[in-house]
Structure formats: C-alpha cells, structure tokens
C-alpha cells in the first residue's frame, strides 16, 4: 500500500505544534466523528435497566423490612429507640433509589448511542460527563456478545470489542439481532483489516 493522502507537514510545524495545530489534511481522507447519525440503543434497554435496578432496590427493601420487623418484634426498648432514625433513613434511601431506578435509564439511555463506519466503531455515553469512544477495527483482537438472564427476558444483548491490552469496550442494550449482525460485521471487518495488514507487512 502506498501512502495516499498522508499530509505533507513541514518540519517547522513539527517542532512548534501549538495547541494541536494540525492542518493540511485532505478533507476527504480523514474520518470525522463529529458528523454522524448515531444509532440509538434499543428502546427496551431503558426498561431492562429499570427492571434490573428495581430488583436490586427490592432486595435492599426486603433486607430493610426484615431488619425493621426484627427490631419491632425483638422487644428491646433501647434498641427500637436507637433504630428509629437509621430505619427511616434506610426506607428513605429505598424510596429514593426506587425513584432514581425508574428515572435514570429514561435520562441516560436516549443519550447513549453507537455508530459503525467502514473503519471503526464508536460509542457515546454520558449525560453530564460525556464520552465518545472510537475503536478502529484494525486494532480489534476479538469480539463477544453476551446477554444475561434479564437481557434475554427483554430480547437484548451486549456487544464487546476487545482491542489489545486493557479490557474490552462494551456497547450494551442492543437488540439480539442487531448485536449478532454487528458482531458478524465487526468480525468481517477485522478479517478485512488483517488482510490489508498482511499486505502492508505487520
């Protein structure tokens, strides 16, 4: 492979880079992450997150309820007097947690999304603290789709792509078919990139 579109930087700029001044790249040659139509996560993913969080809150509430009943039935006066406030706080936490469990996915899920391009896959997430992560296919070592009990119940699956080194990048809340198609596409792209790499000498 030759070197199509490699920008012709002058050495002077090299030694005084400034705040990422990086001009002279042919517009067509650069992949741009800014102008993308992001694919939303599956609509059921919000419900799945709500269900998961509510189950956890339910378990916590059950524990609190058990503690409450124990305190009431045990009949120790000092204990029940001391325990009043902690129990109220715990109940309040359960209620708040339950409300948050319902609301949070509705805020978070619509703001997450992924985009697949010819050369890489992007995932954006976050409401206040936002992040856009890009994984080039040429660096992906392997991929994985998984779905837990709840995921299956909602017909969802997660796709994880693993570059070399530290753990994989997960795209959660995809429809089962979407996840499988995406995985197949990514695998295909990895193979294509490998062939290309073999041409250039890895």
């Amino acid at each position: 492979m030759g070197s199509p579109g490699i920008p012709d930087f002058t050495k002077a700029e090299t030694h005084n880079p400034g705040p990422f001044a990086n001009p002279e790249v042919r517009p067509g040659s650069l992949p741009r992450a800014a102008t993308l139509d992001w694919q939303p996560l599956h609509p059921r993913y919000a419900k799945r997150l709500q269900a998961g969080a509510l189950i956890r809150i339910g378990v916590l509430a059950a524990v609190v309820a058990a503690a409450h009943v124990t305190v009431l039935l045990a009949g120790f006066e000092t204990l029940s007097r001391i325990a009043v406030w902690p129990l109220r706080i715990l109940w309040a936490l359960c209620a708040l947690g339950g409300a948050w469990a319902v609301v949070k996915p509705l805020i978070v899920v619509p703001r997450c999304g992924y985009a697949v391009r010819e050369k890489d896959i992007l995932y954006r997430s976050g409401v206040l603290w936002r992040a856009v992560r890009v994984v080039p296919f040429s660096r992906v070592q392997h991929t994985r789709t998984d779905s837990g009990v709840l995921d299956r119940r909602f017909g969802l699956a997660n796709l994880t792509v693993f570059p070399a080194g530290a753990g994989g990048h997960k795209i959660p809340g995809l429809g089962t078919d979407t996840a499988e198609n995406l995985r197949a596409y990514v695998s295909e792209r990895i193979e294509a990139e490998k062939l290309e790499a073999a041409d250039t000498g890895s």
Partner: protein
Amino acid sequence: MTADLPGTSEFDRWRRTSPFAIVFFVRGTIEQIRIYGQLLATFGLAFLLVRARELAGELIPVAILLIIAVAVLRYWFFRFRITGDRILIRQGVVKKTALDLPLDRIQAVNIQRSLTDRLLGLVTVSVDTAGSGAVEAVIPSVKRAFADRIRAQVAAARRERLARRAEADPSAEGVAIPTGDQRRPSRLADEALAGEAPDGRPARQLATDDPSPGEVMMKLPPGDMVRIGVRMLGEGPVGVLPLMFLARDPRDLLRYFAGQLGYLEPISREEVPHDLVSDLAELIVRAGFVAAVLAFFAVLGIYGAFKTYFGFRLYRTGAAYRTRAGLFTQHEVVVQSVKVQQVTLSQNLVDRCFRRFRMTAQPVSDDAEVLEVPLIGANMAEGLRAELFGSEGGGLTLLPQSRAMVRVSAAFIGALTVKIAAAPALSIPTIGLLFTGPSAGWAQFALIWVLVWTLAGAVIALQRWRRWGYVHDDDGIAVRSGFVARKVEAFLFRKVQSATVKQSPLQRLKGLATLEMQLAGESVEVPYIDHRAACRLRDYILYKVESNARWH
C-alpha cells in the same frame, strides 16, 4: 528456513529440564500453598504449639518432604519440545496441561538466572505471548542454547514471513528486501534479526555460559547503585520532614485548637511547659530521629538496588534491546523496538538532584516484561527514545523540562480544586451543623475549614497543572504529568488501540475536553485541551491508525 539452523534435532524431541529445576518447582509449590500456609500459620501453628508441641517435630519435616516430593513429581511431568514452528510444553501431575505456543505468536523470550542457575550455567526461560490474559510459558533450568534456539527460531519465522510478504507484494511499505542482496536487510528485516546472534553467527556458538549479547550501549557502575537506592526514597524525605515539627503531644495541639473554637474547655499555651533549651534539645533529637529513619530506608533501598540492578548493562543487537542485571538472580529482558508501545521517562525529587531519570519501554502486552533503564541521563534517554521510535517521532521529546511542552488549559486548576476540596470542605461542617446546630463557633470553624481545604486543593491543583503538558508531531505525542515527580510518556499514534474524547459539564461550558488514548499497555490522557483540537487530534490519530496497520 528453520531447517538450515543448526541444532534443530537437539530440542525437537520431548525433553525434561535439568534436575536442578527441582529448586524452581519447590519455590513454585511453596508459592502455590502460601495462601493455605497463611491459614495454617494462624490456626494450625497455634494448635501445634499449644496442644501438640511434640507433634511439631514430626509434622514439619513431613511437610518439607511432601513439598519436595510434589516438586519432584512436577519436575518429572514437566516436558518440553521445540518443533519447526512451535514450542510444546506438557506439564501437570494430576491436572495435565498442554501448552502449545506457535513461534510467530511469541513476543519476547526473557531469561532469568537464579543463583543455582548461575552456579550451574543454566538459565530459566520465560516466553511472553501477545494478548491480554495470555499464557506465559516458563521453562526452568535449561541450557543457554535453548533460549538462543527459541530466539533464533522466532526471528527466523518472522524473517520468513516478511520475506514471503515482500515476495507477494514487492511494493509493500517498508519490507522491500533487495532480492539480489540478502545480506543487506532493510530495517524490518533487521528487526527480524533481533534476538539472533550478532553478525549472523550461528546460535550454537553462543551456547556458552555468558555469550556476547550484542553491542553494549550503557552500563551502570556500582556507584550508581547508591543513587538508585537513594532514589527509592522517592518523595519520602518530604513526607518525613514534618515529623520534626510535630507538637510534643498531638493531643495538646488538638485540644488547643478545639479550645479556641469553643468545643472544649480552653487551655492556654502556658499550660504546656516548655523552655528554649529543652525545645532546642528536642529539635536535635527529632532531627536525629528523622535522619535515622531516612538512613534506614536508604540502606534498604541501596541493598535492593544492588540486588536488582548490580552490573546493569544495556545491549543492542540489531533492533533488539536487552538489559541484564542482578546480584544473585540475574535477570535478562529483551525487547524489540517494533514491539515497544510507549516509552516513559520519570524523575522524582531525588533523581532531580542527581539530574538523572528512570526510563521504561513497554512492549506489546501489559503482562510482558518491561525494558527498564533504572538510571539514565537526559542525552542518553533522548538518544534511546529516538532509536526506539526509528525514523518516526522526530519532533517529540522525553525531557520534562523541554520548552516544546504545551500546557493544558488553566481551567484545569479550578476544576481540580473543586474536585479535591468540595467533599471534605462541605461534608464536615454539615455534619457539625447537624450535631450542634448553627452557632458562632460553628460558623468560625466552618469558615476556617472551608478556607484551609480550598487553599490546599488550589495548591495541589496548581502543582498538578504545572506538571501537565504535551508535545506532538505528525507521528506521535509525548505527555508530561506528575505531582512532585515528573513523568513523560511518549508513543507513536499508530500504536493507539482506541481513543476517547470526554467532556465534563465544566469542560463543555468552556469548550474544553479530555483526550484519552488507549494503548496496548495502558492509556494516556491529555486533560483540558480545546474540544475541537481534541476531536481533530482524535480523528488524525484514527487516520494514522487506519493508514498504518503495523503496531507490533
């Protein structure tokens, strides 16, 4: 290609290692049962001492014999073999394991020589493979020729692959081996030679106890061991100094301040008896104490430095860099320059006094062994960086004091101050308010508390901001960070595995962003730079990644 290498038959059959490897297996067995051993130590030993002291005399020898027996069994069932294109290892007494390592997946062949190994002229070979959570093969107490053989065969396999590619596509970037002249290899073919004998001598001639592993680039004299040892104190001296100025009894100080704020019955300064002479005497005693503590740790550090780095040498063979050091156990690490993901130069307070640095080069996988130069001068570091990066990254620098470094946005200071100070500054007064209710004493306390935390946060944040800096050119980037110590991490863009642009609410307000670049080893962040610049750089990195598939 591999057939013409000498000595193929010697290792191409199932072999056991030297019986002296039993020492290695004993160590391994002890390592394995250490967790249970700790339980035994807490419960069993107590039982033995209290209830059945007479049993101890029998049980301990039995335990030792058992460990040795297990080690012997493990030695007996450990067999290895090198075929044309792979290393095979069969091991396990009860649970049998078969390890099958294709030579072209091997990233590095490292060597350790324990004291027993060195007395007998043997080596312990460990083989790094690519990928995270990769299996690492350790073959204890074998002849040096074995290591040389693996290295030669790995290099040969690589050379063969490159040659095949060059044949298939002569225009391929960087692999153009002139067909008529095989003895003038290109840079890549040169890299392929890495790890093989210098001057193309056959591997067998190297199979002596201590063969010449290439051109010596640098060595560290014993005097430097002292420097390394003292360096291990790190920021310790700064931490110990306040000991000198602590109050006689910290409780007095606490009571004094609490009294001033009206929480406790006030005590006056006069109630704490002191006079000039006793104060002076105490100061001297404390200074002596601090000096003794520092000296103790310095001695420990110097011993550690001698143990790990004695006789340190850095060699170069082709494009392979090799370090060898150690007083008892000699450790040898080989890293090829193609495999290097990032180069790090760090300098703590002590290093700064010596005007030296510590340099590391991280190869492909994060569990692979790192090429470390424990003490290096600025010029040598820059030279080595330039060599490791080859023709690329000419505009980078590893030196933290370099004027080329560009600072990040000053908004970083405010953000970090808030991050450090917000929680402690607000939580403690709030808790106080809950317990005592609003009062003048509380307001005074809260004011001082918030001020102190904000000030402390601001000082820390300012210092952190002063450390952050970056410089990049067309091929790579160098990022400086640190707090008291300074660290510069440099890498080539094509080594990047994935890139993330992150924005906090404050950063969005100011049009800033944090760029995170994940490498095979670890990820490097540039915080608080212009958002558009971050996106542009991210896109440029992706472009470099996609137009250059070579990263290991």
